[in-house]
C-alpha cells in the first residue's frame, strides 16, 4: 500500500472522526450537566442539516447565487434551529422528568428522536427521499500521487477543529463555562452559590445542539446528500464515541470520535472480510474496550466532569 493511498485513508478517516467527535461532544456536555443521555441528539443533527437545506432552497429561489452568502445562511439557519430545538428538548422533555429514574429520560429522549425523525420524513417536501445538498465550498483540489486532497475537505476539517477548540475555550475560560462546570460537579452547591440552574441547562443544551448542527452541515457538504434517517446511526456512533472516550470528558469525546472512525476504516480496509462488516467490527472493538476500561479511555480519574 503506497503512501498516497494511506494519506487518502487518513483524510477519509479524519473527516468521519471530526463529525463523530462533534456529535460526541454534545453527548458528553449533556451528561456532564445533567447526568443524562440525550438519545434524540442524532436526530437533532439531521434536523440541523435539513434546516440548512431549507435556508439554501429558499434563498436560491429568491435569486441569491453567492456561495459565501448561501453558506453563511445555511450555517446560521442550521445553528439557530438546532440550538432552539436542543433547548426545547431540555425544557419540555428532559427537565420535566428530572428526578425520575434515568431510564425514563433515556426513553423519552429516544421517543422524542423518533418523533423528530418521522416529522422530517413526513413534513419536509420529498422528505422520504435522499436530498441533494448543495456543494457550497470550492470543489478544486490537488492530486499528490494517488492522493486527492480536496480544498473543501481541508476547510471542513479546519472549521471542525476550530469549533471544538472554541467550545473548549468557552467551557474553561468564560463565566458561562465556569457555571457549567460548577453544575456538572455539584448541582446543589452550584445552586447555593447563586447559579441559575435552569438557565445553565438550557444554554448547555443549546450549545451542544449547535455543535450537532455543524456536524449535520459538514455531513451535508461532505457527502452532498442528506437523508431523514441520517441521524440514527450518527447518534449511536456519537454516543459510543462519548462512552469510549469517557462520558463527561470533552477530550474523551474527541478521542472517542476519531478512534471510532479509525476502527471503521481499519474494518473496511485492513481486514479480510467484506467491508459490510466494518460497523460490526468497530462496535465489537468498542464492546471489548468497554470491558477493559469501563469508565472509558480518559475516564473519571479525577472526578471532574466537562
Amino acid at each position, binding site marked *: *500500500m*503506497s503512501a498516497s*493511498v494511506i494519506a*487518502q*485513508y487518513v483524510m*477519509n*478517516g479524519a*473527516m*468521519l472522526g471530526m463529525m463523530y467527535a462533534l456529535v460526541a461532544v454534545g453527548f458528553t456536555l449533556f451528561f456532564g450537566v445533567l447526568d443524562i443521555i440525550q438519545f434524540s441528539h442524532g436526530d437533532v443533527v439531521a434536523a440541523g442539516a435539513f434546516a440548512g437545506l431549507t435556508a439554501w432552497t429558499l434563498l436560491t429561489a429568491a435569486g441569491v447565487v453567492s456561495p459565501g452568502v448561501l453558506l453563511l445562511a445555511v450555517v446560521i439557519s442550521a445553528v439557530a434551529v438546532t440550538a432552539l430545538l436542543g433547548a426545547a428538548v431540555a425544557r419540555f422533555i428532559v427537565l420535566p422528568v428530572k428526578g425520575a429514574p434515568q431510564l425514563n429520560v433515556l426513553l423519552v429522549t429516544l421517543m422524542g428522536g423518533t418523533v423528530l425523525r418521522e416529522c422530517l*420524513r413526513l413534513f419536509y417536501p420529498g422528505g*422520504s*427521499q*435522499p*436530498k*441533494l445538498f448543495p456543494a457550497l465550498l470550492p470543489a478544486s*483540489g490537488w*492530486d499528490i500521487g*494517488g492522493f*486527492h486532497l*480536496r480544498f473543501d*475537505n481541508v476547510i471542513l476539517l479546519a472549521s471542525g477543529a476550530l469549533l471544538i477548540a472554541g467550545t473548549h475555550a468557552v467551557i474553561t475560560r468564560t463565566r458561562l463555562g465556569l457555571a457549567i462546570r460548577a453544575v456538572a460537579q455539584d448541582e446543589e452547591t452550584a445552586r447555593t452559590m447563586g447559579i441559575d440552574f435552569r438557565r445553565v441547562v438550557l444554554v448547555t443544551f443549546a450549545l451542544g445542539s449547535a455543535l450537532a448542527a455543524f456536524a449535520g452541515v459538514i455531513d451535508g457538504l*461532505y*457527502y*452532498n*446528500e442528506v*437523508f431523514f*434517517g*441520517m441521524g440514527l*446511526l450518527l447518534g449511536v456512533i456519537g454516543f459510543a464515541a462519548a462512552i469510549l472516550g469517557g462520558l463527561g470528558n470533552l477530550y474523551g469525546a474527541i478521542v472517542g470520535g476519531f478512534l471510532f472512525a479509525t476502527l*471503521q*476504516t481499519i474494518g*473496511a*480496509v485492513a481486514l479480510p472480510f*467484506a*467491508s*459490510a462488516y*466494518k*460497523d460490526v467490527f468497530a462496535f465489537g472493538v468498542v464492546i471489548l474496550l468497554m470491558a477493559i476500561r469501563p469508565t472509558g479511555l480518559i475516564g473519571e480519574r479525577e472526578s471532574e466532569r466537562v
Partner: protein
Amino acid sequence: MRFAAAVLLAALSLSVRAKETVRMAFVGPLTGGNSAIGLGGRNSADLAVRLRNAEGKSKHQYELVVMDDECKPDAGVQMATKAGSDRTIVAGVTHYCSVVAMATVDTYHRFGLPVIVWGAVLPDITYANDFKEVHRVNGTMINQNDTNAKFMAEHGFRKVAVIHDTTDYGKGHNKYFSQFFQKAGGQIVATFGVTADQQDFTAELTQIKAQNPEALYFGGLTPIGVRIRAQMDKLGLKAQFDGTSGIVNDDFIKALGPLAEGALAFREGAPAEKLPGGRKFLEDYTKQGYSNPPEAYGPFAYAAAELLMDVIDKVGPDRKKIIKELANVKDRDSIVGKITFDDHGQNTVPAITRYVVQDGKWLTWEESEYAAGKRKLTSGK
C-alpha cells in the same frame, strides 16, 4: 307506460348492480428511497384498472387495493399476509424490490394467492421454488448482466471493480456480472459487499482507486448508487460508472445532477415509447394527470394488471382458476411485448435495453451521442 319505464329502470339498475366488484392488490415501495419507481408502478397498474372500468365491456368492476412494502422484507411479508388473508382479493401485482419479492413468495403460496411480479429481477423469485402462484412479467438479472458484461468487454473495459449491496439482490448481480465478465475475458480487480444503507464509501473507493480499474460496476439500488457515484468524484476516482436496472430512474439523475452524465445501466424490456402500444400507454398516463412519471417499470406493472384482468374476465374471480389459466399464458400481446410464462411462471423475455445518461436523461445507447462517437465513456486512465 309508467310500468314499462319502471321495469326498464329496474332492469338497468340490475345490470349495473350485477357488475361484481373484483379486488386486486398492488404492492410496491411507496415510501423510502425507491418510492419513485413504486409510485410509477402503482399509477401504471391503477391506469390499467381505470381504463378497463371506463371501457365497460368487462363483467366486473375492478378495484385496486394499494399497499406499501417500503422495500423492506418484513413490511412486504406483512402486506402479503394482508392481501393473502383477505379473500375478497383475488390476485396481486407485486413488488419491485427483489429482497421483498423473495421474502414473500412463501406467503403467497401458503394463501394460494396468484401474483405477478412487476419489477424485481432476482432469478430465485421464480426459479428457486415451484410455486404455481408466483409469476413475473419482467426478465431476471441473469439476462441483463450477460448483456452488461458483453457490452463492457466490447467497449474495451478490461479491469473492473465491483461494489454490491449484501442483500440477495446485490449479491445476485455481483455473481452473474462477475461470472459473465470473466467469461468475456475481463478481470475483476476488487469486490466489495456493502450494507444497503451505508453512508460512507470512501474507504472502499480509496482501495478501488489504488487498483486503478477502468470501470466500477455497481450492483444495487438508487440511494447508495447515488452516494457511491458522488464519492467517486470526491476522491478523484475516474472510472466508468456501470450500473444495473436498479438505478434506471429519474431520482438517480436528480440527486446527482451533472455527475450522472455518462452512467451506464441495463434493463430488460424496452423504454415505454418504443414498446408496442407504449405510445398510447404514455398518452393515457398523461391524461390521468398522475403527479409522478411511470418510471422504468411502470409498463410492466400495467402489463401485469392487464393480464390479470384478462384472465379474470375469462375464468372469473376465483384464485384457483386464475392460477390454472395463468399457466396457459403463451405469446400473449402486451405493451411490454409478447408474454409467455415458462413452467416456473417466468416470462421468457427478450431484449435487454442498454441505457446511458446524457444531459440529464436516460437514453438508450443506440440513440445517444456516446454510441455515435460524439461523446466518450470514461476510460479510467
